[in-house]
């Protein structure tokens, strides 16, 4: 297919279709709500359909390039800024997930959003462009533009269509993320000077290269950056990404934003926006600043573990379902960070896979909470009980999703968490133990939530008239693709591991150039000398 293999700028097309669609939507009069909804859905569906072939046209063979579907054009020559788009296995999967989640978010909003529909769909599509672009961009300037562009539509989504405390939540969201990202901007600029002229007054000698913002160039010079500079740059990036993830103690914006955001906003926030933070660590912090990453791994991991345990405990005591799911995100993303900072293929693979899993499971949980909220206008757990009798289909969907989120074998969460656990324990057994405690607690708060909402007597008389979702209905179809993915990843994750193998090994080698050679020396050589990737495939194979 020339569309996906050749020079055709397929990634740009996928990125800008939502933007073009948003502009088209502006032309529809705002009274024609039906046309606006259909239009937005069709645009998101086209975008998803265009993104899906990336999955099988992406070449993950041994001779494949790390970054594929490359686009490279000059943009602002005066600064050395180029327009570089390309994806590796990690960002390709994240792009796919973003297009799918966007489609689902739009499709789930038909009944939830009853005011200013046109602006709403325009903003969601605009947000899609920002998110997809941020995953595809391989030029720091370009990345930063997309990164900041995402803030504005999300701010409006929370601020206009949110709950009672939406003003507070939206401004908090905006300022938290903005203050993190401006520090990242400084780190980017410092990198830029290190690569070219140096920073004379700080006595930092530059490398004298052509000024550029190309990320791959910084991957290449990462090991040349002096340790002190790495330390400060790591902190600059860390604040931006840790706030976005969010890691404890930078997580306080998240419960507010999630609780106040409309359902679709929460879904996108949980599934994609939080991944921007973890993606940032994988793409920038680790490969560019390997020395600082290793030196700061322990503090980061401690924060991750606190996040896991603290998030789980806080989830346990929540009275509001949405807040419970929000805090569970803090816990889950702690796992992602823990796996990533184990710096071995297992940990990083699990970490990336768990990014996807969290997007699917938590996205689905937010959708489910939204579905019941639309019927009853309450999210208080105490208002429910015995719903399984009244809404069996809904209860079934909720059960699968909750099980997937807590990591039951044969569902996606298990694969991710187990891989992370192996990776973390391989690095330090106590990390594994802490993570295991988190898994137990995760099961506790989700099962207890399920028990209180779905089992027991149907006490609340208001809940006697609740209408179940039907398998052919719109609501079910927002969930079915996600449930299918949960089962697919749970049962047969190999295609994901295949696509993640090369980029993950690349990152691990950036952190420790001797990782694979050292590992090969410690095990007796098998009959046919394995390549680095094969040895990892064998490891990944044991997980399945």
């Amino acid at each position: 297919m020339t569309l996906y293999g050749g020079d055709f700028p397929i990634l740009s097309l996928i990125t800008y279709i939502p933007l073009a669609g948003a502009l088209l939507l502006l032309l529809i009069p705002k009274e024609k709500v039906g046309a606006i909804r259909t239009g937005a859905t069709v645009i998101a569906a086209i975008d998803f359909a265009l993104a899906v072939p990336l999955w099988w046209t992406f070449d993950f063979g041994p001779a494949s390039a790390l970054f594929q579907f490359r686009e490279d054009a000059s943009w602002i020559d005066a600064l050395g800024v180029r327009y570089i788009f390309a994806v590796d296995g990690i960002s390709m999967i994240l792009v796919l997930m973003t297009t799918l989640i966007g489609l689902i978010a739009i499709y789930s909003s038909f009944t939830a959003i009853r005011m200013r529909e046109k602006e709403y769909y325009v903003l969601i599509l605009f947000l899609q462009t920002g998110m997809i672009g941020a995953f595809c961009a391989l030029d720091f300037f370009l990345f930063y533009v997309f990164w900041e562009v995402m803030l504005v539509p999300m701010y409006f989504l929370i601020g206009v269509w949110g709950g009672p405390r939406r003003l507070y939540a939206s401004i908090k969201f905006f300022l938290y993320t903005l203050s993190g990202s401006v520090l990242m901007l400084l780190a980017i600029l410092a990198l830029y000077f290190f690569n070219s002229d140096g920073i004379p007054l700080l006595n930092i000698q530059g490398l004298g290269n052509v000024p550029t913002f190309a990320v791959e160039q910084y991957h290449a010079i990462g090991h040349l950056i002096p340790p002190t500079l790495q330390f400060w740059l790591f902190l600059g990036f860390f604040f931006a990404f840790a706030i976005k993830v969010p890691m404890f103690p930078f997580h306080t914006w998240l419960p507010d934003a999630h609780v106040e955001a409309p359902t679709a906003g929460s879904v996108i926030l949980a599934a994609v926006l939080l991944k921007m933070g973890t993606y940032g660590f994988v793409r920038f912090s680790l490969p560019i600043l390997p020395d600082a990453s290793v030196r700061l791994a322990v503090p980061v991991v401690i924060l991750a573990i606190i996040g896991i345990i603290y998030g789980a405990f806080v989830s346990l005591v929540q009275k509001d379902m949405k807040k419970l799911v929000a805090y569970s995100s803090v816990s889950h993303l702690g796992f992602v960070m823990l796996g990533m900072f184990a710096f071995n293929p297992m940990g990083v693979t699990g970490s990336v896979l768990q990014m996807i899993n969290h997007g699917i499971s938590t996205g689905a949980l937010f959708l489910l909470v939204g579905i019941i909220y639309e019927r009853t206008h309450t999210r208080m757990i105490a208002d429910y009980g015995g719903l399984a009798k009244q809404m069996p289909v809904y209860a079934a969907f909720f059960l699968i999703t909750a099980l997937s989120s807590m990591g039951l074998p044969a569902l996606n969460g298990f694969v991710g968490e187990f891989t992370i656990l192996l990776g973390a324990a391989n690095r330090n057994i106590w990390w594994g133990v802490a993570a295991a405690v988190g898994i137990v607690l995760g099961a506790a708060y989700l099962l207890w939530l399920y028990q209180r909402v779905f089992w027991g007597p149907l006490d609340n008389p208001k809940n006697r008239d609740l209408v179940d979702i039907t398998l052919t209905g719109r609501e079910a179809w927002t969930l079915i693709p996600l449930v299918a993915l949960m089962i697919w990843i749970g049962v047969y994750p190999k295609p994901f591991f295949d696509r993640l193998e090369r980029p993950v090994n690349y990152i691990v080698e950036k952190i420790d150039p001797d990782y694979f050679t050292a590992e090969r020396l410690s095990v007796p050589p098998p009959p046919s000398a394995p390549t680095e990737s094969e040895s990892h495939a064998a490891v990944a194979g044991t997980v399945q």
Partner: protein
Amino acid sequence: MTWLDLTYLAPEIVLAIGACWLLLAPFVFRGNGHSLALWQMLFLLLIAGGTLIWASSAVEQTPASAILRSMFVLDGFAIFFKLLFLGAVAAVVLLSSDFLREENHSPWEYYALLAFALCGMMFMVSGAHLISIWIGLELLSVSSYILAGYYKEHAVSTEAAMKYFLLGSISSAVMLYGMSLIFGVTGSLGLGDIAHVLQGILQNDVLVVGIVMLAAGLCFKIAAVPFHVWTPDVYVGAPTPVTAFLSTASKAAAFAVFARIFYMALSQFRLDWAGVIAAVAALSMVVGNLAALTQDNVKRMLAWSSIGHAGYGLLGILAMSELGLVSLLVYLLVYVVATMGIWALVIMLRRGEYAGESISDFAGLNARAPFWAFAMVVFLLSLGGIPPTAGFVGKYYLFLAAIGSGWGWLAIVAVLMSAVSMFYYLRLVVAMYLRDDPGRPIAANASLKLVAAACLLITLALGLAPQPMLTEVSRSLRTVVATLR
């Protein structure tokens, strides 16, 4: 001095004659003649612009006589700013026309004062000599004092003018004294000569005092802390179009002179003044942005915000590099455009002399005028430095210059304060989009719409495709940058 030298001065001469004509015109045309005055003023600006373009190409063939060259240069730097001032003043004129009509003020003197101020600004950016800079600056200042008090029936406007005049005169006096000290040490007032003499001076305390006093006067004009106290009162008290003028063209002119003097004359001595300017920059950013947080009056909020922006702009001077100068010019351009757009919208919302000023006047603007609400968001994001607006390119460049010259800590202050600034810019966004609509119509007429739409277009275009602007700006700076090496 030869007749050919007049080519260099042609735009200023045209403006001076035109301004005098505008003063005399009421005796020729009976009555108030608002539209007549407006058209004549716009025509004058057009002629001045045409003359500037002609002069800038003509001077390449006619070298100036030595005496002119030591006082007055028409280099790319000057041409850039002159075009910026012409554009900004044209926008201010368009913003003023309705206000003058409704308030029934005489348009002729108003336009004449604007033309004199413009003439002063255009003269001072070409100044290569402290005296010619001083003359231009005073012409601008005196015209501005009168313009600030143009609501002469209102105590608040008169108070603003009085405050501006008193503090302005003191700062001018301080600046002049600083110049005299510099003259005492170097024996010259020409920027080139000063730079030449300074090469042989390693340390001189009198000179440092002179430089600091000169900087203090300039910091007053750009409204940097601690010389900022006039700003909020004058911005609020002056008629809104005059505020628009003071916060855009006048501020950019002061920055241009600041950059001209410090880049061309004092770059050798940077280690002696950099610390003071850095402190002023940091204070301006912190005080301006923090004070803006609590303001409920839009004019007052923008006044504090402009104090903060003065701090950012100083980064471009502190950098003392080609990148720093380019970034300063780019930043001033995007700042002027976005600020002008905001003033156009504030004037659209007016319902009387001082309305459109409280944040609550913006409530529900999205329902009343969605396009203009969108434009306002773009302007605010641009001031906050959020992509894909022009403001992002400007801030990016400034921070790049600051880090490149080793001002890492100032860059950290700057980015944190730009995050803080989004907080109060968002208050307006919240009012426009998230508050209820009190149902008042907006007073958008064609000229206001023209200004706002043009500013919107420029802000978005420069944000998405900054390359042409950056190339043009870097090209225009050759002569000033040459003195750095």
